[in-house]
């Protein structure tokens, strides 16, 4: 075992290497834009240079003269498309702003023309020669810009139904011995996955194949079909590998149906590869947020009152919000809680999911405030969390299905050397570097969604698993193959997994960290159907019921079923059945899933359940993160030499891929705290640093020490796989941990991200 392949603890699978490792490191993994096309034409987008106004006209003469140009599509001649509603309103779209529909401009970088040419270079050159005349009006850029409107999220957002509250906050806060009121701010951020937002569309008669990196092939398939007004069965989305998503590929963007429509009209495959800067405006982003936290506590640190107000920026037409108060209102024992989420409308494109959408901004606020409270109480911040740890969430009183928060704090504190921290701010240094230690809690809801799978077992043990899941870099192929191996008792190298294709049995969106829990539960169930058939074939009738019970086709947790498993002689079973192949298809849904779950699953609609919204319990994964920051006395440069996180996520399917996920999360958390922000020119509501040279993400030298500790945790109440999902767990607490460490290093409390050297005063 190595650092990359940690020794499995109790309730962890084997750290087998990635199923797709060799294909990826040798460049043989085919991403959407790698798919060979027969005689494609190439599309290049023209995007708006204003954020609000109208297009008066185009001068296309110069562009049309470029050799190889086939067509230039604008709102005047674009294919007519039907509207799709927002994903949260029963549709598929991440935005209801549909470009090329009229001369109106609703945000910076909106698609206003598509140039199609015989080569990418010709299309790009012609796009550069398109001249546009606009009538611009003054846009509202963000918070505090003139012309924005603000209203409570509740009542306008389908995603946000209730501001959680309990008890009497006002009274409790008023009388609390120790009080804190503080405001926090987080910036706009963009996902910037490595793979650009490419789309290729190929028509074969009335059938459309779309090659596009997507986190939800069923959603995209149904959404594009709806926009084109065709039967969804005629649309297929293919993407065996996705070059990162982080939420940006979760809902449909307008580009896909546009490209499909043009391909149909030109009767030719079309390949679109937008640029990095276009990716900033043709998809979604994490909206900027503001928070006010009020905490009231007793002298001994017991929380008595908590109020969290959040505000988020969205577009004019769409009431998108993440509303993280659903988590922050429930994280600690506190009898009096109030909250309010508001949405601020500006002339921007609609924001969307970005890794841990609610928790990243809202826990930054709460976990910073907890640290501030600990300072006020002169208390170790770890102890403040311990005092307020709880087995039941305070709003509805439901029990946490399992909660290892303090175990994570203790493990991480030990590994980090928290005991060596001298609590006084500005008390630790090393030469020209001030040193600060900080910590924060992290958590993410455990979520599941309905999923189907098909599994085929051959006599020689070769196994084929088919599921329209998504390999977004997380290790999905690997853990699904491991699941089949474990359930069917076949060697890993005999298992082939097929994903990323909407012709396969439906799987949920790869979002909300639900993939492993959902897809592995479905694959387990279908493998058990196979086992049951085989058992039936070899067991006397009288034992069939018993056999059925032992293979656990119900929702019995994996570990329990495994315990009572008996070895199965596949050869004998196949002989008895008299067949060469056994194939099973099945549809799994989590407890509490709505009645229309399976119907919705096939039509690409999300039915995620879990987190705080479960009937008799609340399910979250937890962790604790400790960081060391160093601040240069002279340059005020902020560096983060050590990040240590301990996490508990139920069953860990594969400690290797899980560690990699968590490590990536910690690094991103650091990046979010210190580097990442999309700069907005407030005069014109445009993004300025829309490239990877100016939108900074960490390089190797920024993360010399990252340590991931995975705790053994068993939770039999969440899903058959016993999995909590940890893709979005690790990048949540880091923002606060770093600001808390900066306070320890400098005595200075920074409440606005990202923290840059000019914010440090020492």
């Amino acid at each position, binding site marked *: 075992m190595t650092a990359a392949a940690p020794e499995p603890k109790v309730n962890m699978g084997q750290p087998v290497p990635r199923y797709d490792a060799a294909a990826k490191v040798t460049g043989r993994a085919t991403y959407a834009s790698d798919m060979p096309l027969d005689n494609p034409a190439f599309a290049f987008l023209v995007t708006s240079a204003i954020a609000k106004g109208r297009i008066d006209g185009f001068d296309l003469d110069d562009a049309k003269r470029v050799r190889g140009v086939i067509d230039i599509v604008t709102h005047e001649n674009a294919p007519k498309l039907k509207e799709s509603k927002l994903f949260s309103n029963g549709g598929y779209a991440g935005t209801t702003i549909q470009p090329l529909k009229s001369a109106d401009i609703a945000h910076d970088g909106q698609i206003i023309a598509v140039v199609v040419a015989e080569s990418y270079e010709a299309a790009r050159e012609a796009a550069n020669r398109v001249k546009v005349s606009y009538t611009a009006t003054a846009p509202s850029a963000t918070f505090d810009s003139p012309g924005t409107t603000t209203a409570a999220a509740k009542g306008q957002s389908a995603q946000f139904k209730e501001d959680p509250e309990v008890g009497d906050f006002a009274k409790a806060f008023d009388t609390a011995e120790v009080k804190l009121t503080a405001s926090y701010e987080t910036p706009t951020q963009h996902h910037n996955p490595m793979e650009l937002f490419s789309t290729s569309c190929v028509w074969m008669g009335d059938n459309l194949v779309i090659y596009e990196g997507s986190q939800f092939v069923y959603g995209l398939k149904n959404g594009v079909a709806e926009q084109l007004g065709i039967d969804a069965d005629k649309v297929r989305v293919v993407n065996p590998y996705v070059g990162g998503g982080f939420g940006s590929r979760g809902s449909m963007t307008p580009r896909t149906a546009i490209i499909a429509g043009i391909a149909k009209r030109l009767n030719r495959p079309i390949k679109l590869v937008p640029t990095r800067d276009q990716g900033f405006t043709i998809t979604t982003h994490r909206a900027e947020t503001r928070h006010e936290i009020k905490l009231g506590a007793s002298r001994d640190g017991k929380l008595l009152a908590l109020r969290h107000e959040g505000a988020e920026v969205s577009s004019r037409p769409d009431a998108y919000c993440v509303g993280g108060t659903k988590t922050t209102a429930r994280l600690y024992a506190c009898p009096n809680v109030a909250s309010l989420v508001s949405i601020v409308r500006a002339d921007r494109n609609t924001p969307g999911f970005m890794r841990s959408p609610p928790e990243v901004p809202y826990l930054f606020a709460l976990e910073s405030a907890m640290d501030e409270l600990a300072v006020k109480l002169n208390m170790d911040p770890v102890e403040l969390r311990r005092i307020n740890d709880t087995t039941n969430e305070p709003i509805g009183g439901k029990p946490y299905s399992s909660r290892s928060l303090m175990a994570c704090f203790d493990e991480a504190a030990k590994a980090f050397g928290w005991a060596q921290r001298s609590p006084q701010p500005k008390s630790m240094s090393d030469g*020209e570097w001030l040193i600060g230690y900080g910590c924060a809690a992290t958590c993410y809801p455990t979520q599941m969604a309905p999923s189907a799978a098909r599994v085929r077992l051959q006599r020689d043990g070769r196994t084929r698993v088919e599921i329209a899941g998504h390999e977004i870099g997380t290790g999905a192929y690997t853990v699904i193959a491991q699941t089949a191996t474990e359930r069917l008792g076949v060697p890993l190298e005999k298992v082939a997994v097929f994903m990323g294709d909407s012709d396969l049995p439906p799987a949920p969106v790869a979002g909300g960290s639900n993939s492993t829990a959902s897809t592995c539960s479905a694959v387990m169930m279908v493998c058990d159907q196979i086992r049951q058939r085989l058992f039936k074939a070899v067991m006397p009738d009288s034992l069939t019921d018993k056999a059925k019970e032992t293979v656990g086709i119900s929702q019995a947790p994996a570990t329990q079923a495994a315990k009572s498993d008996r070895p199965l002689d596949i050869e004998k079973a196949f002989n008895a059945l008299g067949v060469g192949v056994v194939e099973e298809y099945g549809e799994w849904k989590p407890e509490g899933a709505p009645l229309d779950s399976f119907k919705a699953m096939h039509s690409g609609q999300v039915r995620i359940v879990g987190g705080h919204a479960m009937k008799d319990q609340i399910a979250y994964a937890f962790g604790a993160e400790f960081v060391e920051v160093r601040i240069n006395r002279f340059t*005020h440069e902020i560096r983060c030499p050590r990040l240590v996180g301990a996490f508990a996520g139920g069953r860990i399917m594969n400690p290797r891929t899980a560690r990699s996920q968590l490590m990536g999360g910690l690094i991103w958390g650091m990046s979010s705290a210190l580097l990442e922000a999309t700069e907005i020119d407030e005069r014109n509501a445009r993004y*300025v640093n829309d490239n990877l040279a100016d939108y900074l993400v*960490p*390089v190797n030298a920024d993360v010399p020490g990252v340590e991931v500790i995975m705790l053994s945790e068993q939770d039999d109440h969440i899903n058959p796989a016993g999995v909590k999902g940890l893709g979005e767990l690790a990048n949540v607490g880091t923002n606060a941990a770093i600001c808390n460490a900066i306070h320890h290093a400098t005595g200075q409390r920074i409440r606005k991200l990202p923290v840059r050297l000019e914010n440090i005063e020492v």
Partner: protein
Amino acid sequence: MRPFSYQRATDPAVAVQALSAAAAANDALTKAAAQPLAGGTTLIDLMKLDVMRPTAIVDINPLADGWSAIDPGNDGLRLGALAKMSDVAAHEEIQRHYPVIANSLKLAASAQLRNMATLGGNVMQRTRCSYFRDVSYENCNKRNPGSGCAAMDGVNRMHAVLGASDQCIATYPGDFAQALVALDAMVEITGRSGTRNMPFSELHKAPGNTPDIETTLRPGELISAFSISGRWPRSVYLKARDRQSYEFALSSAAVALDVREGTVRDARIALGGVATVPWRAREAEAVLKGQKFDDGLAQRVADAAFADARGRRHNSFKIALGKRVVARALQQAVTMEI
């Protein structure tokens, strides 16, 4: 990117001829129809972005045989313009006798870029101003003379506080040039009438009323070498930036000193990340020269270096930062073991 012709120049005369032939007499060098290609790390980017639209590319890499010498002698140093940044940074004698040069190169860009980029191309790299590099912004006096400056009242955290005009506040982005300007380097220029030498400090032009004219080079002229007299073992390059590697300076200082018995006999200070051109801080040097070094003096020198600095909405912090960087670089240079 727009179509262009491509020619490999097999000797300097061919290169000069090819670059001159396509040039109109009044062209600013940056707008010249023919552009030389060395490492390509700036030019190709700007062509893709449609910021530069040359119709002819003259690949000067075949001249590397004669133009990539790294030649440290007892009396001074000669560096060929086509030497790779990484080769110079790794050269043992450069590290020993000119640490300011080795470090300015080592702290620039990424390993991959340093392997491609040449010294001549490096000093000619163009500003990273976001508004300059995005043609959808009409207002850029550097790109479209007379159109205004979007950065002046826009997002200007990375922009210059020294050497700016009311036409342009774009920062000169490089590192190596600060070392050259500090060490009074000469630059050798090869043109139609052979080679000429001029002080490196005369190569770059502050924006003034013509921010589109960035250097004194004329179309058809190529940088062929740099030379520095003497050795500067007591020299440092200090660079403050947002991340630990692969990032432009928010503020940097190239400092070279001659200190004997605590007294500064000679001092060279140049500033990066804060100015529109590689910035020699002569007033600051004057404060330092002939004095006994202490922290108070370092502070006065730093204040002098930024006496004329002018901040705008997002970049004012660079003045205080720049002063601390200068003071710290001086302390490092004074205390370094040589």
